[in-house]
């Protein structure tokens, strides 16, 4: 039996190992950082000092003290610090201090998930106990028993909840919370950076509603936000809260030494520049750490990947450590399952976890030593978040980023300076997305009537109120707009997913014991839960027997097969309206409104180990239609004559492939949120065109950002193609290699950037 190695020994071995060493593109050692501390502020209550001293904390980190001071001066703040820097003290201290002075005061803590709320509740309770104060705090969410809800509403000093609960259960019932809203002093928004895109745009409107209710009850609470590192924390906080916010970024927390390894899987086919699968490489690396008993987290990019990796690893480790010591973690698992996994990780019963970005958030899983990331997570901010899972205040830790063959991964992995020097991305929201805005105006009208001249946050709404009156949803009388409808608007509005209702996944393997094992949004279900799809859940394979699209139910049965399924989505796009255009030489850039029709067409069965295609079948699901915003670039029809029709077509496909990977970088969104499609003959103009559209009805500002930054995006795309070592195109740049694909895409790029048609 092999003797287990410790982390230092493993790193030593890796440096020696020839095969491994050959694949290291970059090995950066981030030195440990000393703590920067300041004494307790003079006005800090002795009971709070006592509690901190009792924990062996004699002073505050600089960012904690700054937050405290600003909050005490009545300012709204956003504190930006990395994982494990004592971030929560930035809000606990001012809130608890206020409560020592005014026992009537109330605070609302918002966390993006129930899990985080649970964590904070335990932490807060310990702190309050140690202080010896009678401060009542509790979580208020879907799991809160009905009997204690009333007590929390009437007497909870600190109410811990999530935006969804605020939206659908607290605000629409604000009359049950009178004294809470009357005495509300602080609103804490933790994990601010997660409030971006569709979710962030919704939450900004929920906060508009919250502030409106507070004003009704005569309070004007202060906002304290905390965020992981992003480029625009202050801007995001100001957009979300519509207040002037002070930035606190003088992090004083110490950190241990960290090794950051950029690992590129070996090339297995030189001509095509095809590399070994990053999934397999990441699996091998993770296995090395796990078999030595070192707690490791493995991040994968999709739910399917999580399940595939989990299955691999559980097989490998089963005999050595027992299957249950490695667990999966992703959206779609039931909450109780997740809580058990989190606990197992903290207690060390679980040594390995395979996760999607669901564990990027501050869910407390204790300190892991190693983090392996399969494929670049898509943004600098997200990468640092995932990397932060390994190693906290002291001790050595390792992060291995395993590149995949996608263009962006290859670019990042070969240009480590790009990653380490680049500032993280900005988080974008668009609270005035018409659909989101109108949804929340309805909820707001349900909560309190609107009056003539009212605004909703900063939004002008008179025209919308009139529209809703015409549609017989509001009633206008005596300068006021009243909710006049028999529905409960918040029930129809989900803050999280683009489509309104989720598909419930039902396991029917055992007769008489059918059970719900998860859920999925409707759009994703088209490609992941169609009839005959293989759905993976906790490493178990299920085959979908039937997707009842009308009833939103997918019936699955446990199976054991050696393949997974991958579905194709056919997309059509029409331009409805051009809002903005500009020309650069022969190319037109535009931004406007479009309709997208998407239909799942066929699926392929792909064998696990070899990734070969072993069969396919049709998918029969209705078409989904989407009205949204898009940015596009159109080439003159002249290009067709000079370059040739089929050549242009190939060039467009290649360029679209690159843009699909590069553009999301500049708007900080998931690859799924921004789609790219090429058209040789766009319906509205007949010209060769590439569209980049928001995958949410009405758009959330992503394509608008793309339109603004088109020049940079194109330059980056060109750089990426040029730096790819393949001959004429590969999955890492323009996609599947076809004759001259790479050169054609480059030609189009040059034209788009004002170059001459004849350069190539």
């Amino acid at each position, binding site marked *: 039996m092999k003797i287990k190695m410790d982390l230092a020994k493993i790193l030593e071995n890796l440096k020696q190992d020839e095969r491994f060493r050959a694949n290291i593109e970059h090995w950066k050692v981030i030195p440990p950082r000393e703590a920067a501390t300041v004494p307790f502020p003079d006005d800090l209550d002795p009971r709070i000092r006592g509690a901190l001293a009792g924990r062996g904390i004699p002073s505050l980190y600089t960012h904690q003290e700054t937050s405290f001071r600003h909050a005490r001066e009545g300012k709204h703040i956003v504190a930006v610090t990395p994982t494990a820097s004592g971030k929560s003290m930035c809000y606990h201290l001012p809130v608890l201090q206020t409560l020592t002075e005014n026992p009537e005061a109330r605070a609302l803590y918002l966390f993006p998930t129930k899990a985080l709320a649970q964590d904070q509740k335990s932490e807060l309770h310990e702190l309050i106990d140690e202080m010896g104060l009678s401060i009542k705090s509790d979580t208020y969410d879907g799991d809160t028993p009905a009997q204690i809800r009333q007590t929390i509403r009437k007497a909870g000093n600190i109410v811990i909840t999530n935006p969804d609960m605020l939206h659908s259960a607290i605000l*629409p019932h604000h009359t*049950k919370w009178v004294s809470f809203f009357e005495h509300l002093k602080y609103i804490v928004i933790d994990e601010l950076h997660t409030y971006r895109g569709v979710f962030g745009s919704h939450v900004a409107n929920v906060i508009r509603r919250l502030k409106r209710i507070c004003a009704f009850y005569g309070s004007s609470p202060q906002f304290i936000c905390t965020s992981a590192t992003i480029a625009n924390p202050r801007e995001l906080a100001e957009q979300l809260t519509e207040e002037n916010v002070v930035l606190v970024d003088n992090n004083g927390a110490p950190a241990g030494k960290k090794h950051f390894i950029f690992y590129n899987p070996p090339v297995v086919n030189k001509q095509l520049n095809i590399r070994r699968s990053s999934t397999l490489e990441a699996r091998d690396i993770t296995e090395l750490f796990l078999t030595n008993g070192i707690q490791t987290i493995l991040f994968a990019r999709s739910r399917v990947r999580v399940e595939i990796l989990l299955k691999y690893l559980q097989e490998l480790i089963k005999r050595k450590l027992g299957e249950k010591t490695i667990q999966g973690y992703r959206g779609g698992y039931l909450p109780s399952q997740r809580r058990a996994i989190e606990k197992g990780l903290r207690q060390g019963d679980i040594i390995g976890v395979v996760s999607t970005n669901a564990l990027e958030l501050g869910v407390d899983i204790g300190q892991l030593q190693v983090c392996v990331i399969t494929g670049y997570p898509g943004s600098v901010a997200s990468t640092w978040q995932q990397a932060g899972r390994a190693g906290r205040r002291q001790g050595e830790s390792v992060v291995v980023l395993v590149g995949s063959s996608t263009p962006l991964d290859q670019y990042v992995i070969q240009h480590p300076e790009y990653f380490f020097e680049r500032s993280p991305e900005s988080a974008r929201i668009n609270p005035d997305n018409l659909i989101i805005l109108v949804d929340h105006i309805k909820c707001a009208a*349900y909560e309190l009537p609107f009056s003539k001249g009212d605004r909703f946050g900063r939004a002008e709404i008179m025209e919308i109120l009139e*529209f809703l009156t015409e*549609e017989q*949803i509001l009633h206008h*009388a005596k300068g006021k707009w009243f909710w*006049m409808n028999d*529905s409960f608007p918040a029930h129809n509005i989900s803050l999280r997913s683009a489509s309104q209702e989720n598909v419930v996944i039902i396991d029917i393997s055992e007769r008489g014991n059918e059970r719900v094992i998860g859920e999925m949004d409707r759009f994703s279900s088209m490609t992941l839960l169609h009839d005959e799809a293989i759905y993976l859940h906790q490493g178990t394979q299920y085959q979908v027997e039937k997707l009842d699209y009308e009833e939103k139910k997918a019936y699955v049965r446990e199976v054991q097969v050696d393949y997974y399924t991958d579905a194709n989505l056919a997309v059509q796009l029409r331009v409805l309206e051009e809002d903005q255009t500009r020309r650069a030489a022969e190319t037109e850039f535009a931004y406007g409104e479009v309709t997208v029709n998407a239909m799942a067409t066929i699926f392929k069965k792909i064998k696990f180990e070899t990734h070969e295609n072993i069969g396919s079948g049709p998918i029969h699901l209705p078409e989904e239609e989407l009205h949204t915003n898009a940015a596009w670039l159109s080439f003159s029809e002249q290009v067709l004559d000079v370059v040739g029709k089929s050549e242009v077509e190939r060039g467009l496909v290649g360029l679209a492939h690159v843009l699909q990977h590069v553009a999301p970088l500049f708007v900080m969104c998931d690859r799924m949120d921004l789609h790219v499609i090429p058209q040789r003959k766009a319906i509205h103009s007949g010209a060769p065109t590439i569209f980049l559209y928001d995958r949410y009805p009405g758009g959330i500002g992503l394509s608008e950002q793309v339109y603004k930054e088109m020049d940079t995006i194109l330059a980056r795309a060109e750089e990426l193609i040029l730096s790819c070592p393949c001959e004429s195109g590969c999955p890492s740049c323009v996609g599947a290699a076809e004759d001259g694909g790479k050169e054609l895409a480059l030609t189009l790029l040059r034209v788009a950037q004002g170059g001459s048609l004849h350069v190539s």
Partner: protein
Amino acid sequence: MSLKSKLNRFKEHLTKEAPQQQGSRVKDTGRAGGTLEPASSGPFEPASSAGQEPTPFSAPQPARGTAQPDSAPVNSQANMEEIPFMDKWMELGAKPYFWEDEHVMVREVRYPISQRHGHYAFAGLYETIAAWERAGFEHPLSASGRSVEDLLFFDTETTGLHGGTGNTVFLLGHSRMDGESVIVRQHFLAAPYSEAALYRSFLEDSQTATHLVTYNGKSFDWPQVKTRHTLLRDLVPRLPAFGHYDLLHGARRLWREDLESCRLSLIEREKLGVVREDDVPGYLAPIRYFDYLTDKNPDTVAGVLRHNEIDVLSLITLYIHLSALLLSHEQQVDISEEERFKVGRWYEALGDTERAMQAYRLVADSVHPLRDKARIAMGSCYKRQKDWRRALLVWEGLGNSGVTLPEDVLIEMAKLYEHQVKDLEKALLFAEAGYDRWKQKAALLRRRSKAEEAAYRKRIERLEQKLRTQAGPDLDYGGGLV
């Protein structure tokens, strides 16, 4: 693109709440009026259920509008003239109540207390209260100590079905005894900005009442009134702390298994002998009200007012009837064995084993199929009274005569034998019988709870263990009970 055209383009996404079929909203007031009874005919037809003499509607014209809400100052003729369709309101028996520059409509209808509504005349309420006085025991529905005027039979109509801030109460209706009359009064929200006037009108009117009698009012109507009142709390006096009899709970206890639902209209028809004609069902009330806000024509909501009127009158009948069933030892009442059994259950749940026994005994002595269940229940009552011997006697007797005892009774028997009678062998016998019974049932229902199964096994194992260690001829059979 202009906001307006954008709004129209996204209409489908933006107006999920809009009425699905425009046709369902009555725009044509002529048609709406046509569906209603002319205001001059009686508001509802008299009872004519089987086994009862159809009572002719002896006083078909309720004394309409003879009284005004006491403090409604109809001070300004000018104001009156500004109210659209005032003539139609008058015909309905409604007058305005003004507060500042707002007004609501208060409709009043009077009935003589001799009037029958279903199986009872309103005057029966006097006898009901007297019967509660005589009965002299505590019960959630007991009106002992009350006078008839204390009770406000109360029901609301709202713009939605879900509880929540935006669900507006647009009609507060109640009936109440006043000397020789029953007065129905309905406070109607004439415009959504007049809510302060609505609650003022209602509060002035209801001040002297002490108790509400409602149907699901504890969890719906009253909380909803409180919610809307909270929004106006600076403009309107506090709500009184009424006592509250919610008749839904009682109706559920007695009839849940008997009726497909416990909707009031169904109970009226099946149990109270009240027949509604041309009723506007409750779920249409919001849409009628929304239409009224557009056309302001009282005809549009007249059906809703009638519906609510019958509701608050039926509450009187229902209260009389429920009380009569509960006090059947007191009063002459037509009660079925099922009802008697449920009455027993209700008393048992309240811990009143004596009255529960009275009810069960009557069922047990009948030839009704519920007879055995009633006997089993009597056993439980004996057990509750700590009369172990009788409890076992009843149960064992039933078992010996071939009645299938449910598993929980068998386990109760096992417990009594183990802990009270100290007969471990018998205890084991019944524990095993209980387990067998449970297994049969679990197999039939295809539901097997591991925890339940473990509890059975544990009991059996413990008894076997005890038997092994304690076995001996000197056991104290009977435990001093015999």
